[in-house]
């Protein structure tokens, strides 16, 4: 099943027009991107030197000024603020210092998670793309044939067994109503779709029509068998047929490394990211004895779940790159595959990867802030921009600054990174239309 079809086609990279010098020139013309660089540079500087720049200890409560009443920023109430430029937060800690250390955490989480995502995604994507449609040699073919037949036998058997099992112990009952109808309809559509997409000539219209027809058949099947458990025979036949089809696909698929990798990618792309992140962090939070999520865990979880996008992008790039003359030349000279993938193709694939990585840093900053805001991210007292906002809603009326400033930090940083990403895209890919 092709998710987001256009990405599966090879990407055309025009490296004749591309050079580092012209790219830099084009990037400099992009005013918003340059502004983004400045803003981001300031943020990074502050984050790195937070321990030097921060006027107060970010976790210390100012006992002198904090008497349980809100302490406003200096521009609102210069008398009372006592050198706390943006006032105190809802627990009496200096807001500016917390923002600076929050920058440290938020940026580090984002960059580390993206690095992790890049390593996994690039590796898998490069493998999938490079070995995507390996030309068959006799040796490969006979080996592939064995694997294919084994799979066919195994999955046909498994399909039949599963069909029997389901029919025997979990009879589908159509009078159960909607869910059964939906399942059968989807099943019919999917089977029809799978069958038709392997038969030439391939016309999209045919695929669509047969899919709809399959859906209607499934629907009819569900209607014709009212109230009775669907007969075991029917289930077995469906199981064998469908199992065989899966076996057929998988058998052929296993001839291609890329089939396996891309199926895994599809699985992770299909599960909505935010709920999955929340569940995982929730599980970790519940099982660790410290009852807290460490910084490393957050990075591992976010990075470990967000690589499929990169993998898909890298695969598409490699599919196109490996057909180039220089790749051919490198092969002809006798370079190993690993060397070609890393030394010859990777540098040429860097342009789209860089753009994607930049935009992903922005996304992860927002993601981390959402997780922390909901209480499943960085745990207090460590400050992150997200968890500083976690209690902001309750104190919105009398301590507006607690809600406004962390959000502004997120907004401007993410905006800056998005502008940079946009500028990079223009600069590195001359054919792209903004």
């Amino acid at each position, binding site marked *: *099943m092709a998710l987001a079809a256009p990405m599966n086609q090879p990407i055309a990279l025009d490296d004749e027009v591309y050079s580092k010098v012209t790219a830099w020139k084009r990037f400099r013309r992009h005013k918003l991107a340059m502004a983004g660089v400045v803003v981001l540079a300031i943020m990074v500087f502050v984050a790195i030197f937070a321990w030097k720049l921060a006027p107060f200890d970010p976790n210390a409560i100012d006992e002198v000024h904090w008497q349980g009443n809100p302490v406003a920023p200096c521009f609102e109430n210069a008398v009372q603020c006592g050198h706390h430029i943006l006032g105190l937060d809802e627990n009496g800690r200096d807001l500016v210092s917390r923002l600076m250390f929050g920058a440290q955490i938020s940026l580090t989480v984002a960059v580390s998670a993206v690095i992790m995502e890049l390593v996994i995604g690039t590796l898998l994507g490069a493998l999938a793309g490079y070995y995507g449609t390996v030309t068959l040699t006799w040796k490969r073919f006979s080996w592939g044939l064995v694997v294919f037949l084994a799979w066919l036998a195994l999955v046909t058997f498994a399909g039949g067994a599963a069909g029997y099992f*389901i029919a025997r112990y979990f009879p589908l009952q159509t009078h159960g109503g909607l*869910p*059964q109808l939906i399942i059968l309809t989807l099943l019919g559509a999917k089977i029809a779709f799978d069958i038709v997409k392997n038969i030439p000539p391939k016309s*999209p219209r045919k695929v669509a029509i047969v899919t709809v027809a399959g859906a209607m058949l499934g629907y009819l099947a569900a209607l014709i068998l009212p109230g009775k458990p669907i007969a075991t025979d029917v289930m077995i036949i469906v199981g064998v047929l469908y199992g065989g089809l899966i076996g057929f696909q998988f058998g052929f698929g296993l001839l291609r490394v890329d089939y396996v990798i891309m199926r895994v990618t599809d699985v992770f792309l299909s599960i909505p990211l935010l709920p*999955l992140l929340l569940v995982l962090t929730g*599980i970790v939070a519940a099982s660790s004895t410290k009852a807290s999520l460490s910084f490393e865990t957050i990075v591992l979880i976010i990075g470990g779940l967000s690589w499929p996008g990169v993998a898909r992008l890298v695969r598409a790039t490699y599919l196109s790159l490996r057909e180039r003359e220089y790749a051919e030349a490198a092969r002809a000279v006798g370079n190993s595959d690993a060397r070609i993938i890393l030394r010859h193709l990777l540098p040429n694939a860097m342009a789209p990867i860089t753009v994607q990585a930049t935009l992903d840093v922005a996304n992860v900053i927002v993601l981390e802030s*959402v997780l922390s805001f909901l209480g499943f991210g960085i745990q207090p007292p460590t400050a992150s921009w997200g968890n500083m906002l976690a209690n902001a809603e309750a104190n*919105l009326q009398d301590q507006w600054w607690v809600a406004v400033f962390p959000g502004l930090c997120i907004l401007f940083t993410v905006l800056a990174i998005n502008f940079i990403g946009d500028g990079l895209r223009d600069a590195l890919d001359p054919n792209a239309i*903004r």
Partner: protein
Amino acid sequence: MPLLFLISMILFLIIHSAPGGGLGPYLQNPHITPADIARLKHNLGLDQPLPVQYIAWLGQVLRGDFGYSTSNSEPVFNAIVERLPSTFLLMGTAYLIAMIVGISAGLFAAIRPYTTWDYLITTFAFFGQSMPVFWLALMLQLGLAVHGIPLPFGYLIQLPSAEMSSSDTFNLGDRISHLILPATVLAFLNIALYSRFMRSSMLEVVRTDYMRTAAAKGLSFRTILFKHGLKNALIPIVTVTALTLPGLFGGAIVTESIFAWPGEGRLFITALGQEDIAVLLGFLLINATLVVFFNLLADVVYAWLDPRVKYD
């Protein structure tokens, strides 16, 4: 289909690696003895090996039975269906606004590229992309409070107070006033998405040969733009729309939880807090299924609309 089985397997594994193993709420209850726990485990089949549990669960799911919520013993399927209308209302309104405003804004920007208007709209779209939803919601709340605009913040309807006698009467004005804020917040983010897609898609179409041919035939600017251009530029938008549609059922976790909107997203967050495994699994599985389904739909519709696309 194989994809869905793989997804269900992975989700099942992840969820069942949770420490309480589905009995989290009971374990913390001091009135429940270890013997009770063991009996519960046995009754719920939780003492069996994981693969057996998985197959039993899968069989139930195939029959449309997602099990029972551990927190209030309600069938999970019912709990999810119960919340559909309110999620539909919120997401539908938000998407509708986003599509109308976003597409017109993108179109408006695309027909006068690199002008002040274009930059304004593009920058606005970037703002929408870069803002965390919950913060936007907070700022709206703050802004309304400062200006003293009494728009209700949170909940689907006005909660019945002591002096109100008939609280369950349907009140359209009340409904709308409660819808405004969450729908605006959600729409704002999606406007950015739609306007950016629309702009780049329209720009691409404007450069094509058939547009030049149409212009050479002497057709008016309006005709070219709306009859030839818009039709083709909308094709990618259809795909984007199909890909966002799962949200119509899945709801928006953050927005719903901050506005206390009784939809799917809030169901999920509540279940997460109560370690309600059955609800979490049901929610994730249904949403993943929808994503797969709508992706398929997007592919088919795209191929249908654009005859140039061939699948291999």
